[in-house]
Structure formats: structure tokens, C-alpha cells
């Protein structure tokens, strides 16, 4: 079973290698080219782009690479520019395999139709656009699919009249491009169904003159911002931009058709939300990416918007909140709890502050004395624990091995005992021997667990007289099975006259274990003869010196001084904390630790400890 599984993995790996562009998990990368008519100053376009990309990444099991190109027609309207842009696209993507094109046209549909058809005839096209232009038949002929979002003009008119029933005049601000005109025509159409309201159109004057004109609009007027891709001076204006221009001077509330202008002071509207549109586009695009032909998916035309208003604007124009329809989103509304319970909250906060100040005052003196000391100690304990746990992770498999040995023996003995008992004349002596062995192995397993537990327990530094012989032997035993599996020979050379040292048994064991594991790591690529790790201890100049010597790759000469710095590691998988923590522990014991390269091969880590008085 295990074998089959592994072979399965191998064969899968081979398939993956046959595919040129895949991610590490083997799913082929999909490349999507996004073409925008407008430049980056269109905030709706940016929101749409982000929303489409985020949703597609979320939905797809394949990694997706997005390429984004903007034609920027608002600022470069010369037909020459369009040709250059197409040339550029054609040359840039000539050698690149594309899986999908997402077009976001704004003034006509050529970016979804003729342009990709000429440049990338075999790549499926999905488009999304917000406008009122007729759908040209060429899109159907080319088999392009997409979403055409119409402005929700009826919804916006209804919202205006709901919020401000005494509205008598609506000034529509619009532009002169064909798309602008299509929108204005629709507004005009809808205006005929609105009774008792007069419509005025600000289309024949420059937008720049609008703020001055908006100062003195008659009472009962509201301003509705339509699209201005081009005003009479040829200038393009985005909705948020117009809102910001008008807000300081306008004496009438402003309504909009797209959500991107919300937050700049306008009241709101039945707006088109680019994020929501992006999600729907991504769903369609994901569908086409799975291989569905765009030809088979009809173009979707959506005329519904989302009613949204800005809470601040409602306050500014004294529009009663009770007028807001229940399905309408009120945005930027502050938490009302504060309003309702302001006094209670202030009072409570004041009590807390006073109380805290009193307590702080009382404690400051005592605290200041002990703080520095305590902080150091707790950091040290914390770090040692973290490092010990990670060392335990490395050792866990060895310890599992150590634990499974006695457990296995207990199991086999118990099974043998059962078999003996099934015999006609059970050999009681044999069964007694079995039970004694079971007890022995049980103790052995218990010892392994105790050793693990004492290593894992979070403790502060203790100071006891310690026998280094015992401590080192125990640590070496702990590392032995790990060493055996790496085929490393552990050798010990301990002087017989070692005095007791003062220190924390577990923390010192931790340092030693860490140095030993480092040493073993350093010998990963060594010849068998060189796989020797030796631990030596001797008395030197009134101190006890412990050295862990490996015969591995050694430390680059320029880095010997730096190995004890936190987050400094020469190992790929190392976090660089082990030696930093080791130094902290040794220094807390009043000792020193240093690293040096051996004259012949490998490195030595040497620390000293004070003998017990």
C-alpha cells in the first residue's frame, strides 16, 4: 500500500516534468491578458481589475498569471495611438501562450471584438463594460461573451425622489463622447417617466465652469453625475473627480451612477459596484478557462444597480434616515452605540483611568526596581522554551523510536503470554518471566516520557550543584539514536577530576543538545570516517570547559564572530536562534561560549562554567 502510494507520487512527478509551465504542485499555469480602454485614473476600472483577479485566483485550482495593458484612451485619443498600441500588444505577446483575454472596453466594443480577433485569433475573449452603447453584431459573429452592465437609471431616479420628495429639478452633468451621449439618451428616456420633475442637461459647457455654476442652483435642485469621457473641451472627468470639484461649492445634493464616487461627499444612487461586477466577470472567465466555448455563453446585459448612500451626506443635506429604503446600504455610518451611551462610556472610562493611575502609582516604585531584571529573565526562559520545543521537534522522531521499542516488546510479551495461557499445562515460570519483562519495559517507556517531559516543561533558571559527567552522558544518550540514524559516531572524553558546577540542569542540557545537533548537521555530507562528534570536558584555569567538536565543513572565517548573533544561520533550514539562546543561557550561568575552527577539520563550540563553591 505504502509502496503503491509512493510509486503514484513518482509517476505524477514525471507527468509534471513533461509540462513546460506548471507550479510546484503540478497544476499548469493559466495566462490571462487583461485589456483596459481607460488608464489607471479610472478608480472603477482599478477596483474591477482587483476584484476580477482576486476572485479568479480564489476560484481556480490553477495558478493564474495576469498581464494587464491599458490603452489609456482618455489621454491618448489619437487613432495613431490605437494602432501603435495594437502593434505593441502583437509584438509583446507574440511568443507567449495566452489562455484567455478579459477586455474592459469603455467607448466602443473594439477592444473586445476586432482588436483581439486580429491579434490573438485563437484566444477566447470575455469582456465586461459599463455603458449604454448598443451591442454590435460583430461580437456575436466573433463568438465573444461578456457582461454589459447598464446604469440603473430608474433605480437612481426612484432613490432621489424617495430621499428628497420635494425635488423639482435634476441637473444632469454629462459628456460628449458617443458613450456619454448614449447614457444621456437613456437618462432622457427615463426622465419622461418621472412626473413633476424638470430635467436640465449640463453638456454644452466645460465641466471646469460647473463648480461656479453649482453655487446658486434654485432650491429643490439635485445634481446627477453621468459619465464625462469627453466634455466640450475634450477633457475627461472621472465621477469621483467631478464630485470633489463640486462638493466645496455646490448648494445642492449630488447623486451618482457608480460606487467609486461614494465617499467623496455625494449622497449616492442606485450605483454600479465594480467589486460585485468583478466577481461576476471572474465567474464567467473561470467558466471559459475550464474550456467552455465563449460562443455557447450568451452576452449578459444587466440593468440593476445597488442602492447606496453616504451617511455623512444624509446629515449634510438633512435627509431623514427614515426615508432610506430598507434595501439601501448606508455607508460610512459611525457606530451608534457611542451616540446612545456617550455619557456612560465617558464616565466608565474616567473611572478606569483614575483606577489605573492609582494602581500604577502604587506599583511604579516596586516595579521599577525589579522590571529590568524580570524582563530579562522571562525573555530568557521564553526563548529557551521556544528553542527547546523546536529541538524537541528534531528529536521527536528519535524519541518515538525509543518509545516504540519498549512498547513493541510489551506487546509481543503480552501476546506470547496469551498463547502460553491457552496451553493445557501453562508454564507458570515462563509466564512469570514474561510479566517481569513487561514491567521492566513499562518502566523503560516511562523513563523516556519523563525525560521528554522534563525537557518540554517551561521553567525558570535554577541553580543547583551539578555533576557534568552525568549531565553529559544523559544528553549523549538522548542524541544517540538520532546520531545512529545519521551514521554519526558519538565520542565522549571527560576528565575524571571534573568539579561540580552550579547551574540549571535542563537548560545546560539544552545548550549541549543544541551544539551536538548543530555539529551533526555540519557533518551531513562527510565521509563515514569523518562522521565523529566528540564531547570533551576538562578543568581549565579554575573553570570547567566543555567542547563539542565536529569534523564537518567548519565555519567560514569571516562568520566565526557572528554565529552567536540572533537570526544568523549558515543552515538553510535554521532559524538562527539556537546559538543565540545557547549564549544567553551560558552567560546567565556566568560562563562564556565561543566558536572556533579546528586546525584540521570542522569546528568546535566551547563553553565554560563556574565550579560550585
Amino acid at each position: 500500500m505504502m509502496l503503491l502510494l509512493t510509486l503514484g507520487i513518482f509517476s505524477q512527478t514525471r507527468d509534471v516534468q513533461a509540462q513546460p509551465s506548471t507550479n510546484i504542485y503540478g497544476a499548469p499555469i493559466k495566462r490571462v491578458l487583461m485589456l483596459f480602454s481607460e488608464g489607471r485614473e479610472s478608480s472603477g476600472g482599478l477596483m474591477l481589475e482587483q476584484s476580477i483577479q482576486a476572485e479568479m485566483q480564489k476560484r481556480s485550482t490553477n495558478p493564474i498569471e495576469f498581464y494587464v495593458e491599458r490603452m489609456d484612451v482618455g489621454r491618448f485619443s489619437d487613432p495613431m495611438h490605437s494602432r501603435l498600441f495594437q502593434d505593441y500588444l502583437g509584438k509583446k505577446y507574440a511568443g507567449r501562450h495566452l489562455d484567455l483575454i478579459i477586455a474592459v472596453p469603455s467607448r466602443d466594443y473594439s477592444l473586445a471584438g476586432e482588436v483581439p480577433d486580429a491579434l490573438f485569433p485563437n484566444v477566447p475573449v470575455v469582456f465586461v463594460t459599463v455603458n449604454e452603447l448598443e451591442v454590435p453584431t460583430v461580437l456575436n459573429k466573433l463568438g465573444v461573451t461578456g457582461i454589459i452592465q447598464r446604469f440603473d437609471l430608474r433605480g437612481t431616479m426612484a432613490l432621489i425622489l424617495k430621499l428628497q420628495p420635494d425635488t423639482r429639478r435634476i441637473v444632469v452633468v454629462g459628456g460628449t463622447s458617443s458613450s456619454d451621449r448614449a447614457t444621456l439618451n437613456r437618462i432622457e428616456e427615463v426622465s419622461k417617466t418621472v412626473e413633476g420633475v424638470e430635467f436640465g442637461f449640463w453638456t454644452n459647457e466645460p465641466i471646469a465652469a460647473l463648480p461656479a455654476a453649482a453655487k446658486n442652483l434654485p432650491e429643490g435642485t439635485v445634481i446627477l453625475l453621468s459619465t464625462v469621457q469627453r466634455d466640450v473641451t475634450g477633457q475627461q472627468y472621472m465621477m469621483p473627480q467631478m464630485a470633489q470639484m463640486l462638493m466645496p461649492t455646490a448648494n445642492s445634493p449630488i447623486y451618482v451612477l457608480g460606487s467609486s464616487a461614494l465617499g467623496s461627499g455625494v449622497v449616492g444612487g442606485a450605483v454600479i459596484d465594480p467589486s460585485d461586477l468583478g466577481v461576476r466577470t471572474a465567474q464567467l472567465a473561470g467558466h471559459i478557462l475550464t474550456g467552455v466555448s465563449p460562443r455557447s455563453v450568451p452576452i449578459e446585459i444587466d440593468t440593476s444597480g445597488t442602492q447606496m448612500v453616504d451617511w455623512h451626506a444624509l446629515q449634510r443635506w438633512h435627509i431623514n434616515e427614515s426615508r432610506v429604503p430598507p434595501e439601501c446600504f448606508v455607508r460610512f455610518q459611525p457606530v451608534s452605540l457611542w451616540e446612545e451611551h456617550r455619557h456612560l462610556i465617558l464616565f466608565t472610562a474616567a473611572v478606569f483611568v483614575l483606577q489605573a493611575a492609582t494602581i500604577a502609582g502604587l506599583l511604579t516604585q516596586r516595579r521599577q526596581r525589579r522590571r529590568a531584571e524580570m524582563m530579562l529573565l522571562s525573555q530568557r526562559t521564553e526563548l529557551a522554551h521556544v528553542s527547546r520545543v523546536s529541538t524537541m521537534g528534531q528529536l521527536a522522531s528519535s524519541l518515538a523510536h525509543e518509545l516504540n521499542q519498549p512498547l513493541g516488546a510489551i506487546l509481543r510479551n503480552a501476546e506470547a503470554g496469551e498463547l502460553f495461557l491457552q496451553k493445557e499445562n501453562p508454564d507458570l515460570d515462563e509466564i512469570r518471566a514474561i510479566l517481569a519483562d513487561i514491567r521492566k519495559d513499562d518502566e523503560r517507556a516511562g523513563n523516556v516520557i519523563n525525560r521528554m517531559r522534563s525537557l518540554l516543561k517551561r521553567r525558570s533558571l535554577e541553580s543547583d550543584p551539578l555533576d557534568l559527567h552525568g549531565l553529559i552522558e544523559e544528553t549523549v544518550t538522548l542524541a544517540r539514536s538520532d546520531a545512529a540514524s545519521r551514521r554519526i559516531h558519538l565520542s565522549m572524553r571527560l576528565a575524571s577530576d571534573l568539579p561540580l558546577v552550579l547551574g540549571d540542569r535542563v537548560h545546560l542540557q539544552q545548550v549541549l543538545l543544541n551544539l551536538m545537533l548543530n555539529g551533526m548537521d555540519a557533518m551531513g555530507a562527510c565521509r563515514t570516517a569523518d562522521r565523529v562528534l566528540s564531547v570533551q570536558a576538562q578543568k581549565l584555569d579554575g573553570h570547567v570547559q566543555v567542547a563539542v567538536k565536529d569534523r564537518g565543513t567548519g565555519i567560514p572565517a569571516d562568520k566565526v564572530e557572528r554565529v552567536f548573533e540572533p537570526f544568523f544561520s549558515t543552515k538553510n533550514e535554521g532559524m538562527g536562534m539556537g546559538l543565540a539562546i545557547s549564549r544567553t543561557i551560558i552567560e546567565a550561568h556566568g560562563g562564556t561560549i565561543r566558536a572556533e575552527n579546528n586546525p584540521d577539520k570542522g569546528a568546535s563550540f566551547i563553553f565554560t562554567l563556574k565550579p560550585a563553591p
Partner: protein
Amino acid sequence: MNPTNPASPAPVTPPPTIYILDDDASFLKSATRLLRASGYQVEAFESAQVFLDKLTPGMSGCVVTDLEMPGLNGLQLQAALARSANPMPVIFLSAQGDIPKTVHAMRGGAEDFLTKLGPKEELLDAVKRALSRDVRERKQRGRMQELHDLFAQLSERELEVLGHVVQGKLNKQIADELGINERTVKLHRTNITRTLQVQSVAELTRLTEELGLFKKNRPSE
């Protein structure tokens, strides 16, 4: 297994035995106990080297070994055993599952790869399979040895003639190719069939195929 009858004369070859190896004395003892209680002949070893030193072609049965041992480990023992004249089936027992090593062991022809904490039925089933595999393979090896001995009686020339015969060539063709008399070819053929105790060309072909003879020559024809 049948316990050996003390009254019968000592057998020349030891009875089928489970050779169990583990450096953990306590596990070794318990597993030996279990296998003996299940009716098997068991011999325990604390290291692979000691076992290999004692290994003779006459020993039959199977090997149950720990994976991690100081000195020669389980995989090295498996390799050494496979190279020896007595490639007994090997069952691995490990204190922890290690996939790369499992794969390695199974590719090396291991009978099974068990964890030490598995139920005894797993071990006993594996042992049963390994013992019958040993009997089967031993018989097969015996048969190959027999064939080998038979074919060793043929002279170089007879082997050469045999090579042509199993390709279905006529005596005349063989005579032409070897530059010898057709009657000499006939004589060789008679000798061959007598030595190998066979009646037909078909049987000859089957034997040579079983032994894997002349395989290399064929594609060049």
C-alpha cells in the same frame, strides 16, 4: 511447524528456522518468545554481522530483522543476504514508519515491512508467507542447480550445436555454419539428448529457456 522428534537421527540440515535480529535485547527476547510460542523454530541474534558469520547455504527459513541497528543495519543485511548463496526472504520490523526506507526495502525484495507495534497476526502471517516463499524459491534454486549440473556435462562443441538446434536449424545448416560434417552434427545431437535426458527439440528449447541460455545470441539473428 512440526517439533523435531528427539528420537529421530539428527537432520543433516537444520529445520526451517526464523532468524530474528534486533539490537534491542528486550524486544528480541519478547519477539523470540512469541514466535516460539506460536510453534516456530527461532534463533535470535543481536547484530547482523554475527548472523552473517553463521550463515550457511543449508540454513532454511526466513529472516526477521530490525531496521535500525548499529553496525550493519537492516537494509545492508538485506543486500548482503541477497548476494549470498542463501538469499532467504527478509521481513523488516521497524520502531517507526519511514517511507523512503520502506520503499528501499520493498524494492530490495523484502517479504514485508512491519511496525513493531502491529498485532501479532501481521507478523505471523508475514512469517508464514516468507517460509512458504523460501520453500518455493529453494526448490526453484535446487531445480536450477540440477539443470546447471546437467548442462555442465556437455562439451563446448555440444553447447554450440545446441545453440543452433534450439533456433530450429536443420542439421545441414548447422554443419555448414560450423564447418563440420552433417553426421558429426547428428552424433552431437544424440549425445545432447542423452545427457540432458530429453526426447524432443521442444523439450530442449524449454530447458535452455528455463536456464536462460543463448538469450544473448538471439536478437542478432
